[in-house]
């Protein structure tokens, strides 16, 4: 079945999710075109109301809220995407290698992951960030490393089921190297669950970075980022103004959408009908 046909038969929630994801990607790509003002440009008084030149008012320092929301899509999505990709490269590959190699390598890697997973992720991240300091680079590396443990678990479990199949044995007997085994034999057969996991991990990383930024320990000012935008303008909520909730809503919307799409994909690939 072609992708388009599948799309048309998708449930409403999945269609909605895909639409939102496409819109977000477009906004992130064309941020400088869409935003009326610069990312860090101070354009007026702090906390100006909605309307006039400022579509959604201004923030605590007098920067245009709408422009910062648009740029925030680029920064927040970009960093979360980069982190997830890194986590998958690290965790996914080592999981596949652990499953193929087995023995001491598997045992060693699995025990390290067990211990890393025994510490709550947020606490671990806070601990490391307090030592190495909160820069964007350390943020990406720390979260990618912590998330790689979860990816490792899954990719190892999935690959374990593949490596016992005859065609892998045949490839081994042919004398293929590790790289061939990983990329040509195991990975294509483990791709479907890994892609779904990528969506879920992305949501998780995204929420995680937003939470850290909200705590003031994530993406640092003056970079526009949804988590810290909520933090900076939170005081407005006590006056009944909803504009600080907009960045939080933006975070919620994209994670809900990705979850809807992943839910639908898992449903498709498992062949499960509503049970």
């Amino acid at each position, binding site marked *: 079945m072609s992708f388009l046909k599948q799309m048309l038969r998708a449930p409403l*929630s999945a269609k909605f999710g895909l639409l939102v994801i496409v819109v977000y990607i477009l906004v992130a790509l064309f941020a400088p075109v869409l935003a009326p003002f610069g990312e860090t440009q101070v354009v007026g008084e702090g906390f100006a109301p909605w309307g006039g030149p400022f579509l959604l008012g201004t923030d605590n320092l007098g920067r245009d809220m709408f422009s910062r929301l648009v740029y925030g899509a680029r920064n927040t999505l970009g960093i979360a995407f980069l982190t997830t990709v890194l986590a998958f490269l690290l965790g996914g590959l080592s999981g596949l290698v652990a499953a193929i190699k087995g023995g001491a390598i598997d045992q060693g890697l699995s025990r390290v992951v*067990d*211990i890393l997973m*025994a*510490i*709550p*992720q*947020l*606490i*671990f991240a*806070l*601990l*490391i*960030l*307090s*030592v*190495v*300091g909160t820069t964007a680079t350390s943020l990406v590396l720390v979260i990618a490393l912590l998330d790689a443990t979860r990816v490792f678990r899954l990719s190892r479990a999935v690959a374990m089921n593949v490596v016992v199949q005859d065609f892998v044995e045949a490839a081994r007997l042919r004398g293929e190297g590790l790289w061939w085994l990983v990329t040509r034999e195991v990975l294509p057969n483990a791709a479907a669950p890994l892609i779904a996991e990528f969506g879920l991990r992305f*949501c998780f990383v995204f*929420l995680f970075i*937003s*939470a850290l930024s*909200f*705590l*003031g*320990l994530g993406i640092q000012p003056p970079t526009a980022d949804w*988590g810290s935008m*909520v933090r900076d303008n*939170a005081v407005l*909520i*006590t*006056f*009944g103004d*909803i504009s*600080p*909730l907009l960045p*939080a*809503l933006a*975070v*919620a919307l994209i*994670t*809900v959408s*990705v*979850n*809807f799409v992943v*839910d639908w994909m898992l449903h498709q690939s498992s062949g499960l009908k*509503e*049970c």
Partner: protein
Amino acid sequence: MNSIFRLLLQRLALGLLSLFAVSVIIFLAVGMLPGDIAQAMLGQSATPETVAAFRAQLGLDMPPLTRFGHWIWNLLQGDLGVSLANQRPIAELVGARLGNTFSLALLAAMVSVPLALLLGMLAALYRNSWFDRLLNTSALSAVSFPEFFVAYILILVFAVKLNWFPSISNLAPDASLGTILERSVLPVATLSLVVIAQMMRMTRASLINLLASPYIEMARLKGVSQSRIIFRHALPNALAPIVNVVALNLAYLVVGVVVVEVVFVYPGLGQLLVDSVAKRDIPVVQACSLIFAATYILLNTSADVLSIASNPRLMHPKG
């Protein structure tokens, strides 16, 4: 019975081992700082004498193994060291806040666990009805919302618009129980909303799995009533995964409090941790991390133990 014991002992040993490993990691985290921690804390302008004195005060002039021994020994005696920021003993800083955080998590657990189990069972009973679909979609959405979004929406609706509860939950040390409860309503509601969804989905999934199995069909054909099927036949077998997910979510609660405490300015351990990370007050961060990690490991280990203990097949092995 013997194998069960061995299994349980194994889990407990694993828990202790990870606790030890975690304390090593937390201890080593300080050593990971590029360069010298004393220099980094005091800044570039510090004289070599001050740096040396500070190093001695931190005990950095001793070999790492001795330092680790000292640290663990003092920890076991309840001495968590001294805060770098204000030179107060950490045990004093942590003491009162620890109780606040645990009571917050406990209240949230008391609200969310029964509610989640009930909703999960109802969703499983009336699966594919509009009620089930509604619950499922809202649960999926609730999982994807950041905690601070939920928290601020609750503040906007219940504190600002309706004016039912205070938006800030700062507690005076001598606050009465009534005030404490009133101020905890919104933080508890936020935490509950976040964990209920996960627990509910899991309860529903494990019950539905079971309801499709042949022995339930048999009970149905025998003419056993619907409620008896659920409580007598399905629930004992569904207990293991449910207990597991409840304990995991409680472990999650312990961590989830960090963000919620910051939103509501609740004087708990999470806020102390976040403040200390911002100030790079490393001994306090170490102490808080250790407390959070230990609680997390404790809950995870008890999840393992309980899921073994509540599995009828493991508790009553054949032959």
